[in-house]
């Protein structure tokens, strides 16, 4: 027994070569590893592993658990590199674990500044790796490089001032020799940005402000000085197309959230996807999902890229289930709108025009007395990772259905470091799971996994749940779909038709995206629920 374990550790160490950017680009060729937040630069959250499949999933069982010493939500997706699993224990502790046994190698504990004030939890969604260095963005708006072998920090760069409301909760994206992140803080009247840092030194290489400055194109879409405190945060990881050398990022809501009176105009580039030159950060194109947003419909969802057969020819597309309730397929070479339809109940807009711009519904705007609008402020979906399976050709969205809130508009005044909402929107559905059990009527909303055809925007199937879902989705080459929900279930569906194949109750909410890896040929599926990371494999 001892001898076997020793031999395994040695073999794992021997395999631990440098994680070059070439390996990250072609991570589909080594499905035993999970080298970036969404499992590849296309962000499909799809695993080519197929040991676990519909006809043996009944034998899936718990292999090990890592319990975070933290009461915060466990939102991180782990990385796996040659048998070592790296994850983040909230808020900002990096943990290296033997991916086969769950035994911990080391923990690097970073203590964020007491000035940190992330709006919505002291959380972190994961790491990036390049070479033998891990990268973590922190809730006090630092980017830290950590030696993946020892857990020792190599450099620490402050990217913005936490006392002004800047924070970072996302997993970084590595492109070539740079580490790209964005800043959260959209509820504090920040001026959001995406920035790239030299992976070796931590020195800033470029910065793209999500709100154009005076004299820059797009600044005129903000009335007066409103652009200075317009939000436009970035708190989910982007994607990358190596052929186009473009990196794609979703941008958050304009501020103040629910009162647009002082920021008349489209408020670029809030609620957009932006395509940036990965070397310079220059804007190549943008597409705005929700011009002049008054509903907090951040467009920070992970941009999912795929090559699809489109009316007889291959086309580079981007798929997007947006918080505003619409599903979109765009041409990612130029941002052209191809298809867009609601994937959940929407009343703020009557539809999309031929260019994909929403047609606002009359009267559907926040008011002093409150206007009931679908979807509510969490949206038709939120940050929960969707998945695209090249095997089924379907795009899967964790969906909030029949969900609404009365949107109340109120006066607000910007004060640095203080919340800047401009109103309120409280739905019967709690935004985060508290201590209450669920006895809420489904009339105020429920969770659904929706499978969409990206070519038509039509729903192909759905799997309905009783409570909402805050879980991401993983699909695999064996046509399995793994996801969870607030109820604490972790389930496997048939990705082709949505039939339930397997379930387990993990006892607390799943607020993370599942992922899969293998060690010594044995496939594992990992998901965080409550404070634990649960890892399953075949009996």
């Amino acid at each position, binding site marked *: 027994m001892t001898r076997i374990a020793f031999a395994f550790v040695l073999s794992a160490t021997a395999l631990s070569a440098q994680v070059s950017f070439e390996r990250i680009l072609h991570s589909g060729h080594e499905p035993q590893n999970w080298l970036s937040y969404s499992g590849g630069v296309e962000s499909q959250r799809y695993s080519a592993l197929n040991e676990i499949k519909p006809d043996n999933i009944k034998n899936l069982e718990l292999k090990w658990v890592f319990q975070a010493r933290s009461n915060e939500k466990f939102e991180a997706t782990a990385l796996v590199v040659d048998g070592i699993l790296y994850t983040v224990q909230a808020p900002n502790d990096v943990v290296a674990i033997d991916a086969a046994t769950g035994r911990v190698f080391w923990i690097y504990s970073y203590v964020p500044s007491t000035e940190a004030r992330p709006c919505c939890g002291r959380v972190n969604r994961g790491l990036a790796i390049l070479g033998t260095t891990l990268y973590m963005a922190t809730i006090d708006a630092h980017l830290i490089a950590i030696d993946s072998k020892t857990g020792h920090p190599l450099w620490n760069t402050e990217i913005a001032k936490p006392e002004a409301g800047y924070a970072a909760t996302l997993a970084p994206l590595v492109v070539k020799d740079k580490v790209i992140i964005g800043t959260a803080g959209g509820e504090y009247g920040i001026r959001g940005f995406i920035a790239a840092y030299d992976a070796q030194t931590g020195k800033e290489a470029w910065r793209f402000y999500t709100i154009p400055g005076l004299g820059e194109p797009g600044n005129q879409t903000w009335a007066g000085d409103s652009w200075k405190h317009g939000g436009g945060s970035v708190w989910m990881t982007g994607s990358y197309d190596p052929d186009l050398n473009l990196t794609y990022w979703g941008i958050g809501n304009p501020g103040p959230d629910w009162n647009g009176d002082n920021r008349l105009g489209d408020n670029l580039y809030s609620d957009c996807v932006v395509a940036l030159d990965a070397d310079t950060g220059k804007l190549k194109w943008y597409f705005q999902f929700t011009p002049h947003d008054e509903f907090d419909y951040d467009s920070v969802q992970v941009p999912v890229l795929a090559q699809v057969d489109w009316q007889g020819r291959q086309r580079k597309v981007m798929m997007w289930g947006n918080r505003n309730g619409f599903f979109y397929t765009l041409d990612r070479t130029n941002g052209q709108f191809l298809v867009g339809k609601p994937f959940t109940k929407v009343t703020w807009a009557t539809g999309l025009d031929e260019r994909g711009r929403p047609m606002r519904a009359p009267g559907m705007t926040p008011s002093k007395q409150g206007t009931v609008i679908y979807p509510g402020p969490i949206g038709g979906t939120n940050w929960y990772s969707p998945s695209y399976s090249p095997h089924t050709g379907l795009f899967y969205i964790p969906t909030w259905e029949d969900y609404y809130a009365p949107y109340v508009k109120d006066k607000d005044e910007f004060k640095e470091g203080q919340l800047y909402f401009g109103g309120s929107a409280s739905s019967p559905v709690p935004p985060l799971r508290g201590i209450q*059990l669920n*006895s809420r009527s489904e009339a105020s909303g429920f969770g659904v996994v929706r499978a969409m055809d990206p070519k038509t925007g039509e729903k192909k199937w759905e799997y309905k749940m009783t409570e909402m879902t805050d879980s991401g989705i993983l699909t695999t080459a064996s046509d399995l779909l793994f996801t969870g929900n607030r109820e604490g279930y972790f389930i496997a569906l048939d990705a082709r038709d949505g039939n339930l194949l397997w379930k387990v109750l993990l006892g607390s909410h799943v607020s993370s995206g599942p992922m899969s890896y293998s060690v010594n040929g044995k496939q594992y599926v990992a998901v965080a629920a409550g404070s634990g990371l649960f890892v399953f494999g075949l009996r």
Partner: protein
Amino acid sequence: MLRFSLFVVLAGALCAQPNYRPEDVRAGAQLFSTNCMNCHGPDGEAISGVDLMHGKFRHASTDGELVGIITKGIAGTAMPPASLSDAQAQNIVAYLRSRAASGGVDVAAAMRGRTVFEGKGGCLSCHRVQGRGSFSAPDLSNIGSLRKPAELEKSVVEPAAEILDENRTVRAAANDGTTVTGKLLAYDTFGVQIIDAKGRMISLDKSNLRELTFLSSPMPSYRGKLNPSELSDVVAYLVSLKGI
């Protein structure tokens, strides 16, 4: 034992005010309802910025000053003088002080209301209060901390007007033909947890059910079954239920 402890709680609230006789408090309650309630509301908070039941007054602090306000009014405001003797005004003050000392509860009314609640009303045959009663309706031990008097009164006379999601009643019919009815505790995609009238906590697997129905409120309306003062007393009793 439980009955005794509740009595101690209520009686204790009365004993905390040695200067006011219970009959004066009762007389004050009657005078308040006929002279003051029209503007100030049953709980003395109907006028914005004015709260009469918690012992803090904007224009008075002593009992004598309060009597003066009741009998003379407040110049320059909408508060008129009342045609009451100083003794009557003193009874109203006793009532207000009594409510304040008992956390806004009308103790005498609450004690009468408890008698109606447990006797004529038969409320414990479904509800539960501090460990006594049944299980098929919500446990009311803490209801006075959760609901305003007007909401409680509405629930007594119009029980089906508004049922909170967590107070719904569930009827589940199993594939084997058995049926179970109870109060919803929680449910999710795969299961339902209920408690039935006998206090059995039952976990149901949805895959074993052929029907799952949420019923409208089984509670009868007490409109016309209780006279206005009985209704008011029951509400006062419910207001007094603040948990532990």
